[in-house]
């Protein structure tokens, strides 16, 4: 993901190297933040904040190997904060247009990629009823396809809790799909 050399340069305060680092890691951070939050602009803000935090805490990174986990941990924690702020906003609402969009993509062979705005609609529809933890675990496990060990490290949850949250998220989404998606 990132070369140790770049990390070392950034640790020495080299902003040009940090610019390179931002370029290489931002898409990953954005992908996770966007899929968890379901909002492009908020996800961009999270990426910016994450990069600033990264600069502040670079000295604590020992190896490029642990960098990815470290980065995702910062992103997920910032997403949690954001989700807590959004707590009062209405969650899931059955949305005919989004179901239609999903149906169209499912029936396509091969199915085409969704645009950012479409991804946001689908994500919000799927995860609107999930808790922040369930959302994070669902995105990391089911969409980003990370193993439970890594998710446990990123989220700070035990492996059992990760599995439990994933189980509930799957169940919730499955029920909804069964009810609304024909």
């Amino acid at each position, binding site marked *: 993901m990132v070369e140790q050399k770049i990390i070392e340069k950034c640790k020495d305060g080299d902003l040009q190297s940090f610019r390179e680092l*931002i370029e290489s890691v931002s898409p990953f951070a954005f992908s996770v933040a966007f899929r968890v939050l379901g909002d492009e602009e908020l996800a961009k803000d999270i990426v*910016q904040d994450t990069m600033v935090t990264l600069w502040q805490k670079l000295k604590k990174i020992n190896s490029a190997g642990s960098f990815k986990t470290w980065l995702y941990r910062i992103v997920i924690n910032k997403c949690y904060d954001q989700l807590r702020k959004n707590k009062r906003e209405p969650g899931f609402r059955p949305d005919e247009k989004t179901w239609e969009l999903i149906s169209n993509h499912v029936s396509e062979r091969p*199915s085409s990629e969704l645009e950012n705005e479409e991804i946001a609609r*689908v994500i919000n529809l799927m995860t609107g009823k999930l808790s922040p933890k369930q959302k994070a675990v669902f995105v990391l496990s089911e969409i980003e396809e990370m193993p439970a060990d890594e998710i446990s490290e990123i989220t700070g949850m035990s492996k059992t809790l990760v599995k439990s949250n994933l189980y509930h998220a*799957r169940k919730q989404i*499955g*029920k909804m799909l069964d009810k609304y998606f024909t």
Partner: protein
Amino acid sequence: MTAEREKYKKVLAILRGSKPELKGIDLIQDNVIGRIRKGGVKHNPLTEVVENLFAWIYIGWVRRSLVTASVLLVVFFAYQQTMILKGVNDINKREIVTGPDAFTGTYDELDKQVRMLKLTSRGMSTGGLKITEKRIEQLLDSYNELQDKYIDLIRIIEEDPVLKEYIEERLGEDKNKIPNL
């Protein structure tokens, strides 16, 4: 495979295949570098110390334990307050003895004061009445003397049947004189 699982897999496949596209990465780079240059993100030693010392509060189980402990403390506090209030109410119901009635002396004096308390509990109100210790002692002495004389009198009456009969007769007459209320 159930229909529910089938639908779930199809939707997941769409989401996995659609990678969100980050537009305007240059702007993000500029903003971040700008924030760093402005110095708004300088390493603050105090913040670092605080973060290092208290970062453990962000651990899930620690947070949950702290919340549980706070709830228990609040419950314990409420229980304690209830018990104190109950105690205060009990104390309010009790008769308060103040001033010279409070015992400070020897056993004999205690005996006198206990007898005095017995008297007051039989209906003698002390509210507003000012009385010196000397007068109380005089009263108690008279009371003791009277009680001794009464015992002697009863003994004399018991020993003399004629006298006893006479007194009973007189007491019977007195009883009849009392109007029936």
